[in-house]
């Protein structure tokens, strides 16, 4: 136990040193010189005893906790004298022989000193024990109940802390195991886009190791491409969008490209890491959707194949019904004619549905050819209006066409744009009661070509807002009037508009009317290589 020597101990050390010094001196004086003067002759018992005592005292001194200086003095002195005596013995003994004391007195003094030195040795270790005991006594007698209580509380706190630390480590290990087992790729970044964590799945998918990419910006680890195979700029990447907006971003149209030339489609969800209201980072959870895309493609191919196969029997039914209606195999009674008409109409609906399904599957497969050519939209729309005139007349619907005067020629795929106007107009006619009105407006602003088709029809229910452009959606309110529609028209239009980088929206009041508005960028549609066109 290291202790700071207090006053008492310093005093002890002082006396120890003094005794040691005196002892050393006397030992040398009486002892060694005595031996030296007799040299190696007449070494009697006294001399042997004396020498032994000297040796033992030396050992005690060495073992004692006397200050090192004392020990050093002792052994240095012994050493010097031994050398002196051995080499210059005679002269020393002669010079020192004058100072002689009666041998017995010398021996007595010597024994006394020995006793003292032994005592010193024991005293020191004893005094140390005393000191500790003294200290402890001092401490325990002065300990108050509060202090004891505090000590006990500290002990409890320490035990709790160790337990907590153990639990914490165990939880950390568990969390680590959980994160490592997640089957999707997880990358966490700080607010500057540097990677702070990446899980094993992400390591595998991106072909990197955590050590390699830690603290590197994500932009340097992998690039992202859109569905047109164009590399995204940093601002377009979901992680950056999230970091800047503090909002979650999901995207299923992106492909990741790694440094080892691997490319794969992903579905990614990026969420902000928010602490105290600030976005301090982002977490990107992504999975490889190659399989899903394959399945999608197979579904589309299947629909396409089935649709083609369906068309043949549909054509047969159509033709035979026409043969019946035309009276080629005998005249029909009115009733029979009526029945045949019903079959014919139903069949036409099926043909329409198959055509729509084919178009949908072609668009979804991404295989649609987009062949933009210079188009005069006004002319195109006029052509469609003329085509649909019989239906307009039949339902006595008044149509107003208001193309702006300064509309430019715009570069779009005629067939696709035609489909959009055709669907919108057909819907307008279908879902407007007899005697209603339809207005078509064409205009432009700085960036877009704007088209509006407004009708005075049944309208679209407010609650269907989210579903209107989805596949097979049919408003409840018109389903009872008209069962002909297949619900694919608006879906198709939206896909075409999306592919043209345009927008489409509508406003509607039930039983008053609906207005569809869509835009196409004045810069036109992008050409796209493909394999099929709309039917």
């Amino acid at each position, binding site marked *: 136990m290291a202790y700071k020597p207090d006053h008492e101990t310093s005093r002890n050390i002082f006396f120890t040193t003094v005794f040691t010094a005196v002892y050393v001196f006397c030992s040398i004086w009486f002892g060694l010189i005595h031996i030296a003067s007799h040299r190696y002759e007449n070494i009697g018992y006294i001399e042997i005893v004396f020498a032994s005592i000297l040796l033992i005292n030396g050992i005690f001194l060495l073992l004692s906790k006397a200050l090192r200086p004392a020990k050093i003095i002792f052994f240095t002195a012994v050493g010097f004298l031994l050398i002196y005596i051995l080499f210059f013995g005679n002269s020393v003994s002669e010079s020192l022989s004058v100072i002689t004391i009666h041998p017995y007195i010398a021996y007595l003094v010597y024994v006394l000193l020995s006793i003292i030195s032994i005592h010193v040795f024991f005293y020191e270790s004893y005094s140390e024990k005393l000191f500790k005991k003294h200290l402890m006594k001092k401490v325990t007698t002065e300990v108050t109940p509060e202090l004891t209580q505090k000590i006990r509380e500290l002990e409890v706190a320490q035990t709790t802390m160790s337990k907590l630390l153990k639990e914490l480590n165990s939880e950390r290990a568990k969390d680590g195991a959980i994160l490592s087992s997640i089957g999707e790729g997880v990358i966490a970044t700080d607010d500057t886009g540097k990677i702070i964590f990446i899980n094993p799945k992400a390591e595998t998918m991106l072909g990197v190791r955590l050590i390699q990419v830690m603290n590197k910006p994500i932009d340097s680890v992998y690039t992202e491409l859109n569905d047109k195979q164009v590399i995204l700029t940093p601002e377009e990447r979901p992680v950056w969008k999230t970091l800047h907006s503090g909002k979650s971003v999901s995207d299923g149209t992106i492909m990741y490209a790694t440094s080892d030339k691997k490319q794969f489609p992903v579905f990614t969800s990026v969420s902000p890491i928010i602490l105290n209201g600030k976005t301090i980072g982002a977490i990107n959870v992504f999975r490889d959707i190659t399989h899903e895309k394959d399945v999608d493609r197979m579904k589309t191919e299947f629909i396409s194949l089935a649709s083609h196969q369906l068309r043949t029997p549909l054509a*047969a039914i159509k*033709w035979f019904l026409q*043969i019946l209606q*035309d009276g*080629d*195999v005998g005249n029909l009674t009115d009733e029979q004619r009526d029945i045949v008409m019903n079959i014919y109409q139903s069949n036409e609906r099926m043909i329409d549905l198959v055509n729509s399904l084919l178009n949908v599957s072609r668009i979804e497969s991404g295989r649609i050819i987009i062949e933009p050519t210079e188009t005069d939209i006004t002319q195109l729309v006029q052509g469609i209006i003329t085509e649909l005139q019989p239906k307009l007349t039949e339902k006595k619907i008044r149509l107003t066409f208001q193309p702006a005067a300064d509309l430019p020629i715009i570069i779009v795929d005629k067939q696709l744009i035609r489909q959009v106007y055709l669907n919108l107009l057909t819907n307008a006619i279908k879902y407007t009661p007899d005697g209603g009105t339809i207005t078509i407006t064409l205009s432009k602003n700085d960036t877009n070509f704007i088209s509006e088709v407004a009708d005075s029809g049944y309208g679209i229910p407010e609650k269907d807002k989210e579903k209107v452009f989805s596949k097979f959606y049919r408003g409840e309110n018109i389903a009872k009037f008209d069962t002909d529609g297949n619900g694919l028209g608006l879906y198709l239009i939206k896909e075409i508009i999306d592919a043209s980088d345009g927008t489409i929206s509508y406003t509607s009041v039930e039983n008053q009317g609906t207005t569809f508005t869509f835009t196409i960028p004045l810069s036109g549609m992008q050409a796209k290589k493909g*394999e099929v066109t709309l*039917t």
Partner: protein
Amino acid sequence: MAKVLVAEDDKYLANAYRVKLTKSGFEILLVANGEELLMQLEQFNPDIILLDLMMPKVDGFVVLQTLRETDQWKNIPIIITSNLGQKEDIEKGMQMGATDYIVKSNTSIDDIVAKIQANIKPQ
């Protein structure tokens, strides 16, 4: 009576052709594939050919090309029929020398008759 050579592998459609075209006053010969068509061509000596593009054994396009490469038949009106309706197929067919194109499920049989009447050239 004008003669129409119809190549159509679906038996129901073939039947419809037969009823309608006969009623419309044509003499009709039905063949089920391209091979048969080429075999019957000489003997039947049609005024117009209705050619299905999707037939077994010999592709409709191949037949079309073969016909156009033969002196005797390079000018005969050929209406190609299909259920595909692909712009590319239409263009390809027209480029190869077809006279007209119809998508079967989208065309009424009356319109087909009208087309035949419009294009027929007594050989």
